[in-house]
C-alpha cells in the first residue's frame, strides 16, 4: 500500500499581525487544504529567483474550526526563513506549503483530559491551537496552560488567553517570566520548576495528558520533572525546538 503524497499547495497571505517585536502571526488562505488536528505543523518552502529553495516547519496556531490557517513565527537572527516571513512577507504574497504534518503531538476534545500544557516561548503555538479548538468546541475539559517567557514583552496571545480564561469554563492560564518582571507583576518570576508544576498542574492522580513544547533544555527538564512527580511517561507528549531546529 502506498499513501498518496502530501502535495505542495500555494497559499495566499491574507494578513500579518505583530504579536511581539520578534513574533508575527501570518493568516493564510490555502486552497485545497485538508483540515488539520490541533498540534500539527506545515512545511513552508521558499524559492529564490536563482532556484535556491529553503524549507522549514512551523506549527499551526489556528484551530481546525477556522477557515485557512494561521502560523505564528518567531524571528531568529540567523534564520533565513523566519527573517523573511517576519520581515519581507506582505499581505497578497504567495508562499508554498504542505501539510498538515506530524501525527503524534496532537489533541482534540474527543481525546478528553484533563490537560496539562506547558510552553516555553514560541512553543506555545501548537498548544494555542489546542486552546482555541477547545474554546471553539465549547468544551469544559479542564486545561491548565503554563507558559514560560523571558520578559513581559515576549508574551504571545496574552489578551486572547486572558479573555478565554475569564470565561470560567475550566481553562487556567499561568505565565512565568524568567528574566525580570515589570512593576506590579504578581506572577511567577523564575524558570519552571518542581514546585510550580505541583502548584499549577493537575496532579498525577487525575492522570492528565501533558503536552510540553519549547526549547530543548526547557522540554527536557519539564518532562523529567513531570515523570519524577509521578506522571505517566506514556501520557507526556513533547515537541522540542532545537537551537536551530523546527520552528526556526
Amino acid at each position: 500500500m502506498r499513501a498518496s503524497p502530501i502535495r505542495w499547495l500555494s497559499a495566499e497571505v491574507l494578513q500579518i499581525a505583530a504579536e511581539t517585536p520578534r513574533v508575527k502571526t501570518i493568516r493564510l488562505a490555502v486552497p485545497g487544504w485538508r483540515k488539520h488536528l490541533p498540534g500539527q505543523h506545515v512545511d513552508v518552502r521558499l524559492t529564490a529567483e536563482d532556484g535556491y529553495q529553503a524549507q522549514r516547519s512551523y506549527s499551526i496556531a489556528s484551530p481546525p474550526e477556522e477557515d485557512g490557517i494561521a502560523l505564528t513565527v518567531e524571528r531568529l537572527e540567523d534564520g533565513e526563513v523566519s527573517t523573511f516571513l517576519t520581515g519581507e512577507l506582505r499581505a497578497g504574497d504567495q508562499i508554498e506549503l504542505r501539510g498538515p504534518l506530524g501525527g503524534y503531538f496532537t489533541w482534540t476534545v474527543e481525546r478528553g483530559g484533563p490537560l496539562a500544557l506547558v510552553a516555553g516561548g514560541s512553543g506555545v503555538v501548537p498548544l494555542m491551537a489546542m486552546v482555541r479548538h477547545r474554546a471553539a468546541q465549547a468544551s469544559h475539559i479542564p486545561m491548565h496552560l503554563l507558559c514560560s517567557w523571558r520578559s513581559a514583552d515576549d508574551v504571545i496571545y496574552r489578551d486572547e488567553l486572558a479573555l478565554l480564561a475569564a470565561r470560567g469554563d475550566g481553562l487556567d492560564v499561568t505565565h512565568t517570566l524568567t528574566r525580570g518582571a515589570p512593576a506590579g507583576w504578581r506572577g511567577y518570576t523564575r524558570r519552571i520548576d518542581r514546585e510550580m508544576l505541583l502548584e499549577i498542574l493537575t496532579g498525577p492522580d487525575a492522570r492528565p495528558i501533558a503536552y510540553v513544547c519549547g526549547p530543548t533544555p526547557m522540554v527536557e527538564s519539564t518532562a523529567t520533572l513531570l515523570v519524577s512527580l509521578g506522571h505517566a511517561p506514556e501520557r507526556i507528549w513533547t515537541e522540542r525546538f532545537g537551537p536551530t531546529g523546527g520552528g526556526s
Partner: protein
Amino acid sequence: MITRGFKSTRLRGDPSRVPPGQYVTNDFPVLSAGPTPRTPLDAWSFGLRDVHENELATWRWKDLLALPSSTVTVDIHCVTKWSKLDTQWKGVTIDALLEAAGLAPPTPYLTAFCDGGYTTNLALEDLLDGRGLVAYEYDGAPIEPEHGGPARLLVPHLYFWKSSKWVRGLAFMEDNEPGFWETHGYHLRGDPWKEERYAGD
C-alpha cells in the same frame, strides 16, 4: 514558484553532501516524542529477536562494549531539515552483532525497539555491510541521554529518525511494518537524497 523578495542569506552546503531541502547546522538539535528514558546500565541489555519475539541473542552493556567496535565519521540528516556534517560515532555494526550471535538473518525486515516504547522499521539491506551501527559513543564520549544514550541505532544514509534513540534491540519481521514515526505520517524508508520525508513522498 518564485517567492517574491526571498534571497538566500545562508552559506550553501556542498550539494554532494547536503540533500535537497536540508541546511547545515553546527548544533545538535533534539527531537523526540516524550520524556527521555533513563535505564541504568546494569539493567540494560540489547537483544536480537525472531519474528515471534523470542530472544535469539542478548548482550548486557559490558558484553556489547566487548564486541569488536567500529568508529565512523558520517553526515546525518534530520527530517526537520537540519544536516550535521562529519559526526563521529563508535559502536558495533549489525554485521558484527550477527556474527557474534552466529546468526543468518531469517527475514528481510527488522523493527528496532527502544526504551520509551519507540519502534522504527528497517530493511535488512539498510543495516548490513557496515551501514548500521549500535552506537554508544558520540564525538569520543558516551552518548548523552537526550541524544539517545546509552546506545542508539545509527543508520546515517537514512533520515535520522531511523537512527532510533535508546535502542534496546532488533526484532526480525516478515513484512515491512511501520514503526512509531512511520505510523505518525513519516515515510516508510526515509532516504534523504530522494526526500522521502512523509508517507507518500
